[in-house]
């Protein structure tokens, strides 16, 4: 097969030889003076200037290394596709890559990442939140360093809950009760909105209900998705829409932004979303400015609340020509100081726990430091190289359960069967 695969490049190579040799010469000349490393990442929110200044600081501290940062397309699907195609082709065009929390085991299994265990000493691992550390560990080795963190939150309208004398709900039943009571008396107000379109975000939402009832998808090597806990959890989501009618049917097409809009216009009491929405709510002129509270998501009685972990990690391309320089960049970007700057200037949430007790940060970004409890409870989606296939199975089945095409039992037993099939076949 390799013959066929390589025939085409061999045939057309002569056409490009002049260009290629030109490039090589160019690179050689540069390397005499300094090492250039390429850093690929998604778009940095807001003003790009502070981020570039951070990289400039790194260059100043590390003479001889130059960092070219290159932005990938905005959609995470496209970024995944970019990495998969280039790494499969053993491209050494980039050295440091930022990865969504769900990709690390997959890339590690494919042999595309360097082992970075030596960058974090045994004692230093506790410095980071447990969720992301779990997500970057595959076969007991660490393949990436957590860069910034994200997790699902419950947003609520402080003013409305106060008016009715309610405290933020700790269990789902409470949330349903509060939402029902309030919507009965107030017009044009939704109870509880979340993300239910068939996409990755739906899985993030559903897992929070599973976990908050003691359920899970994969435990160790066992597939445990078809459990009573999960059936109850999934049924609750359907009931929120149909039986309790506190969630409008529109959530079955909603992603983050539409729900943020509705809540931001003061049209909902509760919303599940990521931390990014906070700054938008607190902007000058926002109808809900000063009226929003946040807390961990509710749970089932007697169970632990949980939220789905998001965020990005930095790893090194296995085929990189400058692994040493790349390591230095990762060490720098995930350091206490750099994460602090990043949090102060752009508002990205640090992955180091100690920063949540940092005085400057507590003063300047009290919202971020207030998220400590949420991030401690954040759990990664199933940490397995099969994840991308597993989520492709879960998305349509969960969607079917929410829209009433299947019962929760049917959907979950189908998920169980399909995941067993995937994991059986791929081995």
């Amino acid at each position, binding site marked *: 097969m390799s013959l066929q695969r390589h025939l085409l490049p061999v045939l057309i190579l002569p056409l490009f030889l002049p260009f290629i040799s030109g490039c090589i010469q160019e690179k050689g000349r540069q390397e005499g003076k300094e090492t250039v490393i390429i850093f690929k990442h998604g778009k940095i929110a807001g003003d790009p200037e502070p981020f570039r200044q951070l990289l400039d600081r790194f260059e100043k501290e590390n003479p001889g290394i130059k960092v070219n940062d290159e932005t990938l397309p905005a959609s995470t*699907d496209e970024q995944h596709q970019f990495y998969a195609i280039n790494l499969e082709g053993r491209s050494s065009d980039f050295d440091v890559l930022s990865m969504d929390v769900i990709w690390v085991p997959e890339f590690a299994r494919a042999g595309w990442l360097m082992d970075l265990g030596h960058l974090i000493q045994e004692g230093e691992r506790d410095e980071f939140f447990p969720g992301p550390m779990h997500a970057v560990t595959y076969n007991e080795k660490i393949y990436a360093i957590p860069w910034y963190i994200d997790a699902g939150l419950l947003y609520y309208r402080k003013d409305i809950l106060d008016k009715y004398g309610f405290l933020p709900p700790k269990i789902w039943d409470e949330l349903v009760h509060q939402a029902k009571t309030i919507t009965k008396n107030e017009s044009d107000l939704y109870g509880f909105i979340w993300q239910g*379109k068939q996409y990755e975000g739906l899985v993030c939402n559903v897992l929070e209900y599973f976990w908050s009832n003691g359920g899970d998808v994969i435990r160790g090597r066992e597939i445990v998705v078809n459990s009573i806990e999960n059936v109850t959890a999934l049924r609750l989501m359907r009931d929120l829409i149909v039986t309790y009618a506190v969630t409008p*049917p529109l959530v079955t097409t909603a992603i983050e932004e539409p729900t943020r809009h509705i809540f931001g216009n003061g049209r909902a009491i509760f919303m599940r979303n990521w931390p990014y929405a906070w700054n938008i709510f607190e902007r000058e002129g926002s109808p809900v400015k000063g009226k929003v509270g946040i807390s961990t998501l509710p749970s089932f009685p007697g169970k632990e609340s949980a939220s789905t972990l998001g965020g990005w990690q930095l790893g090194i391309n296995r085929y990189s020509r400058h692994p040493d320089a790349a390591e230095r960049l990762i060490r720098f970007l995930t350091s206490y100081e750099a994460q602090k700057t990043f949090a102060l200037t752009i508002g990205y949430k640090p992955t180091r726990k100690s920063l949540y007790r940092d005085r400057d940060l507590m003063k300047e970004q009290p919202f971020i430091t207030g998220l400590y409890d949420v991030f401690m409870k954040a759990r990664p989606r199933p940490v397995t190289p099969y994840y991308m296939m597993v989520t492709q199975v879960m998305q349509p089945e969960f969607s079917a359960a929410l829209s009433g095409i299947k019962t929760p039992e049917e959907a979950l037993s189908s998920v169980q069967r399909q995941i067993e099939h995937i994991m059986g076949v791929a081995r």
Partner: protein
Amino acid sequence: MTIKDSGYRFVISALILLSLVSIYPLVYVLYLSLHRRLLIFDISRFVGLENYLFLLKDDRFWNALKNTVYFTVVSVSMELFLGLSIAMLLNRTFMFKGIVRALVLIPWAIPTVVSARMWEWMYNTDFGILNYMLGAKINWLGSPFWAMNAAIFMDVWKTTPFVAILLMAGLHVIPQDIYHAARVDGAENLAIFRKITLPLLKPVILVVLIFRTLDAFRVFDAVYVLTGGGPANTTETLSIYAYKTLFQTLQFGYGSALSVVIFLCIGSISIFYIRLLSRGIKQ
């Protein structure tokens, strides 16, 4: 050297170019489709027709095929009907004819992804202009019944102008004398349409059908942006399924088998139309 000889030389250079850019990938996809190839697990081995046999048992494939066929049949027939009506209307002489013709083309000129995003907001249950105008709360993209039809509606909005323009060109070349003669013979409007316009327009209609059927069968961007295949895969078309298999789960073997099936479907549709077309011309 005769003209015929030199002709071969041009054809051969074109053939080489074509085989590099289109036949080589095609053969490679066929080759991949006979393998189990999972990038992440470094698995790549020959499995013969196993991927195709699995495809026969794969409910998700049959569901996607059903969706694709429904999308194609409904959207193409609506586009043809509406396009023909618009073409007939615009073929008359009236004031600002040029401007109106240009205006009609606007939906076609907007890139699909952009118009799909536009429609996504128009279909929004809460702020969407459609529900506002209807005074209803229809969950267009979220209900299993509406989602596919909503996607079809957007496609019809977008491509009807294209159909109309092609048909207008076809109407233009029908000699006016024939219409005059028919009128002199006392033919009714309907009879003129059935006996003169339709038969003379047939080759153009077939060309339009080829274009539109093939395009509709491969539909990806419009539906992907609107619904991502949901809810519960009720709008997942073959192209979306192949894309997810190939580029999201990186199953190159099975994804290639899916692509080959799409190719075979499209190939047979084209052959069917081309037969019709050549028979029409011979008559």
